[in-house]
């Protein structure tokens, strides 16, 4: 399988007054054709910045300082801005957490969608409108013809997210990057969106990077999962493997911190401490201060181990099933 996206040793740093903030640090991964990859981590782990880096959306003081991002073989980082614009929104689309921030409140949904179509394809307004209407219908918005003339505030949160998905689908991209798209939604609405996304990704053969802090959602949706901690991918592999037999202590810590992991009423098993400040990360393994398995060797950088489709960065990986 040829990968749609191949990220090699990506590092995105922010040059702040208080020092260099390594938001993404030496991250490598691939996304295969029609593959759904879940990118999980807690706040500040660098999962969103990874998504932004792929699309060239990192603003100063942030900068991609190293690495390659190969999209269908072409390095996006070496691409001139004009060429990048033909890819962004057309071949790679993005869906954000809060659709109210991505939709223009003073333009009707139809105007914004027609604009998106015409930005990449020279088609008539009528045809662009037709395509916009079809896209709205596709994501399950009732009476799409009338809704084209509605403004974002006239939609509910779930419907707005459907509009954002419809816009992402307008050009049938090869890859969609979705950054916490259901986090702000209620359970019953989240379920509807997940249902639609799964159906559409399958129907159009799109690859998907699903960024989320919710392991439950990723478990239900993704084929492969990557766990990020403090700017690094600490573990990656097939969803079933990673969730049933986590190798990295952080992954197993996350899994046992959820309420469902212990019998009702018993104390939960949180990961002790809190994530290190991205400005002053400990040397070596960034997790070692919170890790029960840490020894002296963890002060040195753990190398990425790759075995049987699993990747992890740890000197003392768990072996066998989760505790």
């Amino acid at each position, binding site marked *: 399988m040829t990968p749609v996206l191949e990220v090699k040793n990506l590092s995105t740093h922010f040059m702040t007054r208080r020092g260099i903030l390594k938001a993404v640090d030496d991250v490598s991964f691939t996304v295969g054709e029609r593959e759904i990859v879940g990118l999980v981590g*807690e*706040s500040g782990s660098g999962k969103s910045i990874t998504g932004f880096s792929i699309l060239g959306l990192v603003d100063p003081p942030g900068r991609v300082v190293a690495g390659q991002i190969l999209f269908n073989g072409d390095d996006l980082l070496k691409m001139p801005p004009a060429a990048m614009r033909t890819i962004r929104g057309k071949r790679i689309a993005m869906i954000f957490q809060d659709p109210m921030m991505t939709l223009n409140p003073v333009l009707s949904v139809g105007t914004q969608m027609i604009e998106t179509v015409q930005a990449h394809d020279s088609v008539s307004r009528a045809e662009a409108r037709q395509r916009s209407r079809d896209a709205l219908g596709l994501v399950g918005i009732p009476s799409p013809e009338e809704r084209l003339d509605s403004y974002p505030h006239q939609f*509910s*949160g*779930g*419907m707005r997210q459907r509009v954002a998905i419809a816009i992402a689908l307008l050009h049938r991209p090869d890859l969609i990057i979705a950054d916490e798209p259901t986090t702000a939604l*209620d*359970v*019953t*609405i*989240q*379920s*509807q969106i*997940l*249902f639609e996304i*799964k159906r559409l990704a399958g129907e159009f053969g799109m690859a998907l990077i699903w960024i989320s*802090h*919710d*392991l*439950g*959602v990723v*478990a*239900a*949706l993704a084929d492969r999962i990557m766990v990020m901690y403090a700017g690094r991918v600490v573990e990656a592999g097939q*969803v*079933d493997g990673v*969730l049933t037999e986590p190798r990295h202590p952080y992954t197993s*810590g*996350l*899994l046992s*911190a*959820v*309420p*469902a992991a*212990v019998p*009702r*009423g018993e*104390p*939960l*098993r*949180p*990961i002790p401490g*809190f*994530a290190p400040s991205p400005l002053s990360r400990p040397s070596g393994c960034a997790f070692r201060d919170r890790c029960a398995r840490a020894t002296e060797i963890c002060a040195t950088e753990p190398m990425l181990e790759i075995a049987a489709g699993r990747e992890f960065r740890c000197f003392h990986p768990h072996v066998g099933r989760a505790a």
Partner: protein
Amino acid sequence: MSMPLIEAVDVSRRFSRKLDYAEKIANLFGAGLEEKTVHAVDEVNLAVYPGEVVGLVGESGCGKSTLGRVMAGIMPASGGEVRWQGKPLISLQGAEKRNMRLSAQMIFQDPMSTLNPRKRVIDLIGEAPKVHGIAKGRQMRDYVASLAERVGLDASYLDRYPHQFSGGQRQRIGIARALAVKPKLLVCDESVAALDVSIQAQILNLFMDLKREFGLTYLFISHDLGVVKHICDRVVVMYLGRVVESATPDELFGNPKHPYTQALIRELPTVADRRRTFTPIKGEIPSPLHPPTGCHFHPRCPKAFDRCRIERPVLKENAAGHVSACHRNDLAANETTNATAEPAI
């Protein structure tokens, strides 16, 4: 059972928008405009007994936060009454009223917006005990330090400002502030929703430790069923201003009766299930400005029949301590000739 610590009796809370001048003038010409009213909470009965942890769950706009605020006494009810240890809140006067206010404290979702950014931790936590004479003068620092340590904050941080803390630590400040006036009841409104999983577990453990140590009672408002299932003794499900089901977590999650509860539980993605397909219930949560007639859930309910569109279902007991408001209960009752008892929640 003993007397409830706090009890809502037929509590309603309505929000209406008054007509503006233009609309009043338009009405003089016969436009017939009416005030728009949202029934955020619609005749809800809820009793919380001492030492109990009651979870209040539902989706956005279901009225769970409003009910929490009404019960905590920071928002008046528009109908019905809230009783504190058997006495109606509105009848309380003077010292009694002040004591009730201190005994019911709230902890909110976003600690950053509830902590004054210009105050130091010692003043944030210490202000209320100072005003109410719980700790004075030189004792104050020790008192605040002991509270801070109890909630897992280093006492050396007392002179820092809220922005110097992480989200989890800020939530601990909020908890210490609530504890500072020696409350009996904590109303936690989405108190762990904004926290990462590993930090969320720390705060939930803290809540449970505090419960044992100080004999606290909790009204725990959350949209997160996993959290509620874990820490609550009883779970109350709300939909569009009304209670639709109430039971112990084992009953509610093992044997949900209301179609809405069933959908909520079924659609919650968990790591354990690793369910690969979704069977969402259709439709949106209706606007509380124009709630559907009869059972509020009927437009989305896969099992709705004619009666659901006309008649509001009342809460009926399905099993001991398990009540739900669904007309299908009567169908089931007729089939099994089970007598339905008076609702008691």
